[in-house]
């Protein structure tokens, strides 16, 4: 085992050495290709494709069963699986997007979250504007809730909690699915916290939330103005994030 480790280390070091020699801006691709060619010493891995095919069949069967009971359940099932799959494969993490800029100065995840916000803004805008133009009731207006101190208090608590727990709601669920045992603990307390929150929600609604004012941007800025304002804000945040990363990188390399 020790010999194996040392051998592998030597290979890795040779690879790193090779990278130093050919260190250019394109070294990432050089590194990638070298790690593929030098994988002879890696432990043999199980072939997971049969598991994938099996799971896919099971998903489809359960989906069909849901569809026979209630079509919207089948839709939830499909979107849920798609969301989880994309989240896991892309290593998309809302916690990292907020934490890494401060911790390491890397804002790539934050910028991808901003892009996701921009895309969903356009999508939701299209759905709502489409309904408005046709004179139909605008969907999702129940989610236009007052802005109040509860938002700020909740956001702060959630922020502290997610950094300690190592993931936000979706991240925790995704990593429990991956088999990361520690976050089963996070999930347990996430459920307990949600129950406590639901228990006290009435008080918050009565005493804090309803004192705020609910703002639906299209009422104030018009439909196109609202979309423009939202996208402008996202672009500004994106530019700030980019500048922040460059500034942080500059600071770190100087000492």
């Amino acid at each position: 085992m020790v010999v194996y480790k040392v051998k592998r280390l030597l290979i890795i070091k040779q690879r790193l050495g090779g990278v130093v020699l050919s260190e250019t801006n394109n070294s990432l691709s050089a590194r990638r290709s070298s790690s593929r060619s030098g994988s002879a010493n890696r432990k043999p891995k199980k072939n997971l494709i049969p598991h994938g095919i099996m799971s896919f069949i099971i998903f489809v069967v359960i989906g069909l069963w849901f569809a026979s009971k209630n079509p919207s359940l089948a839709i939830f099932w499909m979107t849920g699986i798609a969301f989880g799959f994309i989240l896991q494969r892309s290593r998309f993490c809302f916690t990292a997007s907020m934490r890494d800029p401060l911790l390491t100065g890397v804002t790539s995840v934050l910028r991808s979250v901003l892009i996701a916000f921009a895309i969903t803004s356009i999508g939701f805008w299209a759905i709502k504007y489409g309904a408005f133009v046709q004179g139909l009731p605008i969907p999702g207006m129940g989610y236009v809730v007052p802005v109040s101190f509860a938002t700020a208090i909740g956001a702060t608590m959630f922020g502290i909690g997610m950094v300690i727990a190592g993931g936000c709601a979706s991240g925790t669920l995704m990593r429990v699915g991956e088999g990361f045992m520690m976050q089963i603990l996070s999930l347990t307390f996430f459920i307990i916290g949600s129950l406590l929150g639901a228990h006290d929600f009435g008080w918050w609604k009565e005493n804090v939330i309803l004192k705020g004012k609910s703002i639906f941007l299209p009422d104030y800025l018009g439909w196109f103005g609202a979309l423009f304002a939202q996208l402008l804000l996202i672009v500004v945040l994106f530019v700030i994030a980019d500048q922040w990363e460059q500034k942080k990188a500059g600071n770190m390399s100087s000492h």
Partner: protein
Amino acid sequence: MKEVILDCLGEACPVPIVKSEKAIIDLEVGDLLIVQIDHSCAMKNVPEWARAQGYNVEIEEVDDGEWEVFIEKTK
């Protein structure tokens, strides 16, 4: 030239990166830091941080969902 193995197995996301940041301070130029992680998020941000610092980085998936990140301190 020495190698330091940093065991972060079972540690959730911010911990591996904070530990790596601390561990690399004590290393000499040319030393190798090997971070063992099994948190998929750390697998992304530890290498990203190290590359942003200008270190040489190699990722090896030693087992399903278990990685070793090799960081060579270059400066």
